[in-house]
């Protein structure tokens, strides 16, 4: 289980996260919803070890996480960053190689086959520069690349951002499929409706504070959440 306790994170003198605590039981999908600038990316980057918190701690199975991003991956936590961030001048296959940077050769070869089985389109495009893929394909690649490290926990930062509704649906199905295969998911989203629908448990982040938590269904029917996060999307959908 991944646990965040009393976390304060600041950029310079401006605090972006105030006293955040959340727990992510193994095997579950946890969603964190919040609007622009709420602190979602900051939260994931702190868990990943890219940002040092001012105070508080992050533990995995009771042990504090190392303070460097590359060691966090070794500990079993991988992040699929906001905006996909595929390595655009590397081929699709090389992107997967990067995802398996810490894996043993045999594990990497086996996982690569699994990822290609999951995403046949990536296999077709294996030798193509990742920058030439469509947005949806890039998101698949970013997720596939994350899987290459055989993570215990996958942190996903707005995987639906900028994608067509049909692709968004596929991405969320995929996240559930990855979860069924035993990977714990922390999902950060502005698309609250979808994120709450797949979540076992969810948190609402506003201006760096957690203001609400509950099961996905509870939050989806909470009047405050409906008004602030579901209203517009209900109209859109």
């Amino acid at each position: 289980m991944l646990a965040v306790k009393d976390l304060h994170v600041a950029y310079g003198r401006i605090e972006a996260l105030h006293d955040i605590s959340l727990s992510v039981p193994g095997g579950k999908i946890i969603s964190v919803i919040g609007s622009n600038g709420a602190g979602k990316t900051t939260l994931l980057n702190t868990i990943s070890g890219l940002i040092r918190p001012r105070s508080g701690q992050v533990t995995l199975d009771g042990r504090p996480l190392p303070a460097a991003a590359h060691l966090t991956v070794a500990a079993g936590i991988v992040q699929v960053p906001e905006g996909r961030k595929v390595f655009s001048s590397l081929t699709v296959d090389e992107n997967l190689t990067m995802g398996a940077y810490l894996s043993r050769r045999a594990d990497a070869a086996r996982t690569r086959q699994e990822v290609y089985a999951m995403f046949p389109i990536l296999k077709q495009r294996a030798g193509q520069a990742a920058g030439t893929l469509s947005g949806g394909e890039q998101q698949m690649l970013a997720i596939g690349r994350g899987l290459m490290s055989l993570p215990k926990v996958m942190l996903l930062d707005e995987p639906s951002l900028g994608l067509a509704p049909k692709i968004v649906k596929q991405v969320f199905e995929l996240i559930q499929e990855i979860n069924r295969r035993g990977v714990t998911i922390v999902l950060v989203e502005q698309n609250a409706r979808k994120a709450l629908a797949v979540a076992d448990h969810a948190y609402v982040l506003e201006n760096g504070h957690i203001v609400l938590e509950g099961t996905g269904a509870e939050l989806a029917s909470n009047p405050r959440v409906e008004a602030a996060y579901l209203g517009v999307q209900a109209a859109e959908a």
Partner: protein
Amino acid sequence: MEGTSTFSFVVQQMVNGISLGAVYALIAVGFALVFNVLKFSNFSHGGVIGISAYVGFLGALHLHLPLLPTLLLGTLAGGVVASVVEFLAFRSIRKKRGQLVYFFVTSVTMLMLLEQVLVIFFGASFFTYPQLIRTTSFTVGGVSISILYILMMVCAAVAFAVLAWALRYTKVGIAIRAASNDLTTTNLMGVNVDFIVLATFFVSGLLAGLSGVLLGMAYTLYPQIGQLVVKGFIASVLGGLGSLTGAAMGALALGIVEVFLITVMGAGLSPAVIFVLMVVFLLVRPQGFAGVSFKEKA
């Protein structure tokens, strides 16, 4: 240069230009490697070139090393010196997330510092490499090619073949390319970026070292010999900052243009004309030969 016809004159100048361009390409690609990862113009590269040129010189003079070991010694020295520079000068700026201008200023400072080291140990006097290769030339159809020029081209070809292989097929090589796309995301893959940055400087330094020995053999040795890094800088700008192939192409073009200009207008005027040509070229084609835009970089 006993070419009588215009044709053999042109071919002769092309051969000279390509040989010179090959050494510029070694400088430019080494320069571009670091630029791609850290996005700053690393003029300390010139200091590394200078130190390596003298190390190769000392090996050849005092250890009586033949050609190949001298080249290897200088190359290796470049890798080591560049790594030390990264560790001592640039790492702490990177850890503090310093602005690009700090990197740039530090790199110029390191260039001057390394030059001063050479002045302290060798004085400001000129030295020449011992005779490592025969000075004869081949003459083919009125075009003469010196053995030194052949050496320059062969060294560059071998170095680029090894580099291309390493960047494509080794894990660290692929990680260096990934880091050139996005250092933070590379970190998120479990890559220790401190190591990758060090490795990038090391590889860049190897190229600097090799070019240093070749420059030392081609010209006389003096403490400021590393300032030829400017040629690498111009070449990588012409090629389009961000592309290694572009940097090599820019260097070849620069070598050829320079040789022609020197024969036409002499060595005094040609640097000024080259700068003007560079500015004009960049006005017409700001993304350089390779077409990578460098708008967001410094």
